[in-house]
């Protein structure tokens, strides 16, 4: 076999088979760094009071008690459903207000409907808002606005807006440029374009995203109840596990949350499949 002039060799003299492209290098580099950081993490961890030989069987025993013998003891079914209603209510309010506010902000953020500097500004603010964990927003509002459902809704609202602005503005940017031009040519003003071209062609997308956010907000509302005292089923979960140490009750509450979450997930998957199968995964 004749040696080829096109053969590239590695430093070791072996024939290279990789392209050596930037994309390949960055991927290898990313994976290596992540593995190194993981090892560092396990070395760095604080293992105070950890006894694996006891903790693991205990966890399985606890899980067994939770999931195989669930029961309510500190409150009634009526109360349980009421608390679930509170959680769903918090999720719903922050989603619906979030969607309305996000709609207007997304119009400002969409590059085909807005001026470049406005779009940039909105995007930077949104990125900043998203960087703060929801629980911090809720806790900060709890002292700033006084404890209560207002603080929870306001705190959750921030993230909902940030999330939906990103999703909505991407949907707006996919509106056919030709339609916008045609309408502009007829002398339609900006609001006409929004109401008659942008809104009809993106409405189902907006609805699906909003529902997806509702699904997320349900989980967030549970978390806020537990970690920020926002009330609802999350707070009961926190009380049952952290205060009464009642595993059976924890199990029952977890089941309730699980069932609601799965129903919401199925509904939102159905909506996604129906309205936008391809885009569903892109901006989670």
């Amino acid at each position, binding site marked *: *076999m*004749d040696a080829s002039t*096109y053969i590239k060799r590695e430093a070791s003299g*072996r024939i*290279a*088979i990789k*392209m050596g492209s930037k994309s390949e290098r960055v991927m290898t580099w990313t994976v290596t760094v992540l593995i190194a950081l993981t090892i560092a993490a396990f070395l760095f961890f604080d293992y105070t009071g950890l006894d694996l030989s006891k903790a693991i069987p205990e966890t399985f025993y606890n899980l067994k008690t939770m999931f195989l013998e669930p029961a309510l003891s500190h409150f009634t079914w009526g109360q349980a459903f009421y608390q679930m209603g509170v959680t769903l209510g918090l999720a719903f309010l922050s989603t619906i207000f979030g969607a309305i506010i996000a709609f207007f902000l997304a119009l400002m953020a969409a590059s085909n409907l807005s001026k470049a500097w406005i779009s940039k500004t909105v995007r930077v603010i949104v990125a900043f808002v998203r960087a703060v964990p929801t629980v911090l927003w809720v806790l900060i509002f709890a002292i700033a606005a006084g404890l209560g459902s207002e603080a929870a809704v306001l705190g959750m609202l921030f993230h909902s807006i940030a999330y939906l602005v990103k999703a909505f503005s991407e949907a707006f940017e996919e509106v056919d440029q030709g339609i916008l031009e045609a309408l502009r040519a007829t002398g339609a003003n900006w609001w006409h374009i929004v109401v008659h071209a942008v809104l009809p062609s993106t409405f189902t997308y907006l609805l699906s995203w909003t529902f997806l956010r509702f699904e997320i907000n349900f989980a967030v509302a549970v978390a806020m109840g537990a970690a920020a005292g926002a009330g609802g089923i999350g707070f009961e979960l926190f009380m049952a596990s952290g205060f009464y140490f009642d595993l059976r009750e924890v199990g029952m509450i977890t089941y309730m949350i699980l069932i609601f979450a799965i129903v919401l997930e199925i509904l939102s998957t159905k909506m996604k499949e129906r309205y936008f199968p391809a885009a569903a995964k892109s901006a989670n």
Partner: protein
Amino acid sequence: MPLLQIKDLGKSYNSDAKVLQGLNFEVESGEFLSIIGPSGAGKSTLLRCINRMVEIDEGKVVFDGQEVGKLNKKELRKVRTNIGMIFQHYNLVPRLSVIENVLHGRFGYKTTIQGVLGRFTEAEKEHAFFLLKKLGIEEHAYKRCDQLSGGQQQRVGIARSLIQEPKIVLCDEPIASLDPNASKVIMDHLKSITQELGITCIVNLHQVEIAKSYSDRIIGLNKGGIVFDGPSYRLHRNHTDQIYGTQTQATPEIRELIMV
């Protein structure tokens, strides 16, 4: 003993519709055989029965003295290393380099670990370059496969099958997605290389003229059955009419379309 024997082969994907029925033929070592027929005649299924990419329902396929339908997983992999395959859509891994795709043909000879880690010997790599040179795409060796034209990608596919050092190459519509120029290049390469290396070649085609000009022998398939089997010079218009189900009095335009 012939390299490949097909006996009473039958195949159906669901119980009522039979894709293949009662096929019998033998292929000698070094033959260049074309299988022609309308789409849906079962050409692809027949090819995939030979290396058992689809399960065989009835009859048997004997390749190199082994009954393909009776092999266990490991034996089947061993047999598949001796059978190269070329596809209509090239079936390359788009994000990998040309040379990596060619070397994929060696997996059958490697342990799982060697394959997963991508350990190839220098001889294998040199062989890959040799084949690429033969096919005239050596300069693209380090390009990403999806940056190549269709004809070039198909040549990568050919190199991948040849590096297996196969006894037979199965080509499933290798030129159906290519323009006439690229088609000619591919068919020329297939013909000359298989002849040179003494490899048997079975090609599924729907272009009758190309089948006639390249192959030693043609099998005509219609509705899962063989309607013609003979040397290509014996294939006449009445046979193609039978294969494609067109009538002799059919308008010339229609036949024209089918023949192209």
